[in-house]
């Protein structure tokens, strides 16, 4: 069934290219040239996964964004993109390491849960809003995930050493970006819902939890705006907001109150 496209081959090639890339970038402390080779290797890994996703899209004759496993694939593509973009812009090496680690996590999950990749796509999902809504959310979640990592690192620094305010500023930048995407995702969802279901907001469990996620980060943004020096409170708020995000992302599949949601990832 899966012979037409060998996911493990693509996954392991991309994973190896990324791992090599990150290693070379770290080694560039001693040998300047290895930085560029590392970056190229990293981008090559992204290209490999991009090719896979494109072939999958063509084969399925629909955007491969319907199931949880399929969205994980997009994280595997986008997280390294964000990682390399942030590295090139701000030279944070650990960004690359983070996106490498997360991509491996998602790749391994997908390797362990092979998808059947069927072509079915219910009529409501056959809409030009499908791709923008999902993509914008994936970007938002990826950025906010990184911001949480920064927050945890910040809490560690704050508790055991002195906090470098740059860490908190980085968290803020990430949250502003991620929140922007989150807002767009929420609004695109509402505009799409009006086309598909007749109303832009029905307090469906997924909608409610997406809104809760949005509210969580909204509180964080206001806390940071008003109290830029209140480090502990802000970092804890950021972590709390991320927990809400996780519930919205896949926790609702387990909530008893959410079983009838139109958003529970269909198989």
């Amino acid at each position, binding site marked *: 069934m899966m012979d037409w496209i060998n996911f493990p081959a693509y996954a392991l090639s991309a994973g190896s290219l990324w791992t090599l890339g990150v290693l070379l970038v770290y080694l560039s402390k001693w040998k300047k040239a290895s930085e560029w080779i590392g970056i190229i290797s990293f981008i090559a890994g992204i290209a490999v996964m991009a090719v896979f996703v494109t072939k999958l899209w063509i084969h399925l004759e629909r955007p491969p964004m319907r199931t949880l496993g399929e969205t994980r694939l997009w994280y595997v593509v986008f997280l390294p993109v964000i990682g390399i973009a942030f590295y090139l812009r701000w030279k944070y090496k650990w960004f690359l390491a983070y996106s490498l680690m997360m991509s491996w996590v998602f790749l391994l999950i997908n390797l362990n849960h092979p998808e059947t990749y069927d072509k079915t796509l219910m009529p409501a999902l056959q809409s030009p809003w499908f791709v923008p809504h999902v993509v914008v959310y994936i970007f938002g979640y990826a950025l906010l995930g990184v911001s949480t990592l920064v927050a945890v690192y910040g809490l560690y620094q704050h508790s055991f050493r002195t906090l470098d305010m740059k860490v908190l500023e980085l968290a803020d930048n990430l949250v*502003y970006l991620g929140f922007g995407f989150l807002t767009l995702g929420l609004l695109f969802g509402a505009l799409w819902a009006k086309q598909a279901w007749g109303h832009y907001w029905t307090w469906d469990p997924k909608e409610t939890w997406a809104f809760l996620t949005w509210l969580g980060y909204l509180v964080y943004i206001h806390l940071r705006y008003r109290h830029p020096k209140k480090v502990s409170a802000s970092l804890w708020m950021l972590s709390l907001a991320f927990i809400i995000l996780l519930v919205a992302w896949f926790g609702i599949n387990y909530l008893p109150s959410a079983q009838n949601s139109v958003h529970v990832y269909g198989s």
Partner: protein
Amino acid sequence: MNGEKRKHTFYEYRQGFTIALLVLVTGFVLEWVSGGKGIGLPSWPMNLYIGLSFAFILFFVHRFYRELDIVKMLSRVPVSISSIVLFTLLTLVMGLTKQNEPGAAKFMQLTGLSHLRNSYVFLLSGMYLLTSLGLVLFRRMHPFNYKNAGFLLNHLGLWIIVLAGSLGAGDLKRVNIMVHEQESVWYGYGQNGYPVQLPFTIKLIDFDIDFFPPKLAFIENRTMTLSQDTEKKLPMIEKGIETQFGAWTVKVEEFMPFSRRDSLGVYYTSEDTLSYPAAFLKIRNSKSGEEKSGWISTGNIRTEPQFLNAGEKHSFAMTIPEARRYSSLLEVIRDGHVSDTTLLVVNKPVKAGGYNLYQTSYDERMGKWSEYSVLEAVRDPWLPVIYTGIFMVILGSLYLFTIGKTPKKTE
């Protein structure tokens, strides 16, 4: 921050959260006093008057009382945070509990927590939020500085969405319509189950539906459900595909998306309306070496589905095909005027008499042989206002992408 300022800020938070608590308790009391039945939503023009009055009161307070300490406090961040937190907690209840359930606990009913969408506490919480949001907006608009554009877009956009969404809910009409082929209907059923007359008549000329090919399933004979270990695996049936289910290797030798079965049990391709999908499988068990072949099919409204036994406890079966596309060919009659025939498809609503018509569903039990189409007529006159708010917040989000600097110090 020096000691005085810090104390003042703490004081503002205490005030803000005290107000939030007051809002919560007042909401609960009002709900309890009214028997926990929830609030009715005002419709046109009452909702417009309420909205305008509210906006005017906020403007009035800002214009003449903005120097008062309490007004200043209401327009600052600690109060905003307390109003957002209150709203968030109520939304959290909505996220964790099933809402509008008939058998809800007494406590939940009387506080309004079981039906938050139309409860006093949610309404008051929304008003608290809109007050804080409105006052901060007025404060930032004077003196007007184009640098505040991003802030204004986000905050005003949100204010419009929340206000219009709440007020407009009273004018929202959603009508479920079930119409059979060749039939005309001029009414449907509202959200509360009562019939609603429509300002037009709909005639369903034809309901059309086509399906994705069915999938191959490995089921347990006793329970007629998917076998546990291969639960996730449901490949789409295509001629020539070969797949594995546990110890069984399966090959689809033949697939007919439209077939009938004659009296001898032989399948043949057929285009007639009662046709259904069938496939011929060849299966082999690698452990026992058993080999067999046979047909599987979904059957139709008159014929039972066919399975292929695989061992004592399992069988191969064909799933009910999933809908790929369905549509209704309609004629809309209004004031004696017959429209051109229109095709109504999912995700592409059609306008009729101030309503939007949506293709919602069909008789899913009958599937291909559904004799009726389910539509929804929705009237949402406040929609343009909501769209304005949404558009403003979208622009505001783009502004967020450009903020990559340290947040400003406190005012």
